């Protein structure tokens, strides 16, 4: 037993009032869905949190019509008036931050420390940021009077339910579009709480519509003929499907898909901070991060030293109750995802990589996976090529900067990369050569609404965030 055991420090779930069942949010009101309802569970306990309506294609049609109806008035408002609504939403998000964070952790399984300190503050920041653009679009470099596209159909994943919602809704609304958004079927609750916040902010009915459901609902949103813009964040397979659906329809499309990012550590790196960056890169949000640093490329000369430091650090990670304020690693979001992580980890072993996890007790109920390292990984292994989307790090080595670049780029993906070195000129040289939308230097998984985010190659196209993020929602 350790000398200093932290007592349980659970955040109270009383701050959030979960209803037994939820409908769809269409035209400013909650309405029933005509599809069969589904259950959303707390992945840490497998307890059912609520029943949620499935939007049929008729329901999606109603939502698109509501958005269409609201579009003229909304896009006709002066930017400064649209900004007021966005600022109001941002402020309400800050006021209700605890409620949002607790609900996010309950429905998603992520640690409250992250939902409280990362997700929710970034969500508010994103609304604040794009609120600021709403009345300055004429000065954004897209001509004197850039016009919105119309109705945006947006489909978001379960890993950052609130943050991905903010990335989609905030720029769309700032530019004058109206939206129909479908949250992921395993994490619909916070999106429905945002719907409530839209009501509280007195956002005109129909500007934001939220339809819940699984893949079919998403497909209906994407395929709807009256949708002008499709934005999707999720897997590359579904992204391909969407690209095929949208092709030739004239709909504007942005895709933010998978990744297999290289986190590259040179022998002259600030070692202790590099270890933190590796941990943050792959174990943040249980590795359910499209830009996760899932491939560690370490210079062979410091491999042993770094590996020892990394193992020592992993032994201090605290896995367990997502609502405990001291939890570092929460639950895997779903049984399906857990099965995928297990399957790929088994492939790693059978292909000859060596698997290691710290001594780590997993709770008896819920979906859990221990933080895991694979050493002796080769570029040809599946765990070096396929996105695992879990707390599993594949460790490879390199000898020279050129080899690091070659290995980092040798993937169908290109969403993000990390460079750890104390040598500034090498950072610039590397960043120039890495084919990745985001290159972090001496940090990882840092986000800011002012910074554009998006991928190369099969990680998607279009950019979200920053000035570039406006382009996706303007007719330019």
């Amino acid at each position, binding site marked *: 037993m*350790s*000398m*200093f*055991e*932290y*007592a*349980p*420090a659970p955040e109270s779930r009383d701050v959030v009032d979960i209803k037994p069942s939820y409908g769809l949010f269409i035209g400013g009101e909650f309405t029933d869905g005509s599809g069969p309802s589904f259950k959303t569970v707390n992945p840490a306990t497998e307890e059912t949190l609520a029943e949620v309506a499935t939007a049929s294609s008729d329901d999606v049609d109603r939502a698109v019509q509501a958005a269409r109806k609201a579009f003229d008035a909304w896009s006709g408002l002066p930017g400064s008036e649209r900004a007021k609504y966005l600022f109001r939403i941002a402020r309400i998000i800050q006021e209700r931050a605890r409620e949002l964070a607790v609900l996010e952790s309950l429905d998603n399984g992520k640690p409250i*420390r992250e939902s409280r*300190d990362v997700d929710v503050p970034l969500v508010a920041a994103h609304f604040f940021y794009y609120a600021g653009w709403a009345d300055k679009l004429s000065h954004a470099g897209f001509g004197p009077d850039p016009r919105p596209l119309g109705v945006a159909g947006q489909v978001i994943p379960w890993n950052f339910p609130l943050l991905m919602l903010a990335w989609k809704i905030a720029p769309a609304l700032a530019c004058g579009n109206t939206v129909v958004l479908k949250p992921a079927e395993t994490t619909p609750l916070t999106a429905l709480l945002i719907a409530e916040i839209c009501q509280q902010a007195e956002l005109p009915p129909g500007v934001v519509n939220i339809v819940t459901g699984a893949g079919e609902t998403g497909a209906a949103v994407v395929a709807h003929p009256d949708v002008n813009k499709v934005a999707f964040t999720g897997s590359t397979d579904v992204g391909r499907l969407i690209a095929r659906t949208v092709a030739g329809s004239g709909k504007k499309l942005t895709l933010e898909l998978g990744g297999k990012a290289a986190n590259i550590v040179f022998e*002259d*790196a*600030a*070692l*202790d*901070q590099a270890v*933190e*960056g590796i941990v943050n890169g792959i174990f943040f949000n249980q590795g359910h991060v499209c830009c996760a640093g899932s491939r560690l490329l370490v210079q062979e000369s410091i491999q042993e030293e770094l590996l020892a430091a990394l193992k020592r650090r992993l032994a*201090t990670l605290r896995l367990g109750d997502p609502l405990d*304020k*001291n939890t570092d690693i929460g639950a895997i979001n779903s049984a399906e995802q857990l099965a995928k992580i297990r399957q790929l980890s088994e492939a790693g072993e059978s292909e000859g990589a060596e698997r290691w996890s710290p001594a780590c007790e997993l709770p008896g109920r819920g979906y859990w996976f221990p933080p895991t390292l694979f050493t002796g990984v080769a570029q040809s292994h599946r765990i070096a090529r396929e996105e695992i989307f879990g707390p599993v790090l594949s460790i490879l080595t390199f000898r020279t900067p050129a080899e690091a670049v070659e290995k980092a780029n040798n993937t169908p993906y290109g969403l993000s990369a990390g460079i750890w070195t*104390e040598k500034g000129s090498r950072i610039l040289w590397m960043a120039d050569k890495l084919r990745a939308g985001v290159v972090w230097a*001496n*940090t990882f998984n840092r986000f800011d609404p002012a910074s554009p985010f998006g991928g190369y190659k099969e990680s998607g196209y279009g950019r979200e965030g920053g000035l570039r993020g406006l382009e996706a929602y303007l007719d330019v």
Partner: protein
Amino acid sequence: MTTSLADVASSGATLRAFLHGLPGVDRVGADQRAAMLGTRSIKTTAKAQAIDLAISMVDLTTLEGADTPGKVRALCAKARHPGEGAPRVAAVCVYPDLVHVAAGALAGSGVKVASVATAFPSGRSSLEVKVSETKLAVAAGADEIDMVIDRGAFLAGDHLKVYEEIAAVKAACGDAHLKVILETGELATYDNVRRASWLAMLAGGDFIKTSTGKVSPAATLPVTLIMLEAVRDFRDATGRQVGVKPAGGIRTTKDAIKNLVLVNETAGDDWLSPDWFRLGASSLLNDLLMQRQKLATGRYAGPDYFTLD
């Protein structure tokens, strides 16, 4: 590594090469890590345990020009019996000329007598003066010497001078433990903090200490974090364990607990004892006692229920 470490101080050039060959510290990353550990929520039983541990690690300190025998005796009385049921503190830290007073007042209590020395706080004097001051303090009954390094020499790149002074003072300490004050607020960069930590450990320091308390900033969390990493890595390299003492600016129970969390999650269990971790402080003790009572009774007592010494 042990054999090569024995030679690193053979010349200024080898020492410099060694210290500059240590991995760098990224300021942003170190600050972030310390801030994250500062969010740990220590409640109920863990808090009670942490408070008692923190009390037992306090070096109760008075380092004022106006210090008198009476003031020192009062502090010693508090050190022996901080409060109902509370553990005694680790040491009382005074100027050298008051060591005999503290030694008399603490005799048989188990509380150590610590003395600053070596022209504290600036360290701007000759080696002869520093060594003889150390010897006088030890002769007067000091169990521990808190020396300051020559920051001027360090910043001028004369690492060997700093090393030799520490080694000389260590020799003058005899059986007394040597704490080496880096005065990290004057070293300014985290890279310097790491280098000075290694320098002090290589030269024979038993403890590395952040600050004199006379310079701001004193003990910040990132600086303590870097020093904890240094003692951890030094033990891995040499097998010798060195203690850490943040001092200055630690005033509240919350500050103290954040420090313990840093120890727990950086250096680990082996450092969670007064033998290996100290908190240099004066007003901290009363806040610890107040929080201790609050945990036990559920109520805060007014400040007048805690003695001002």
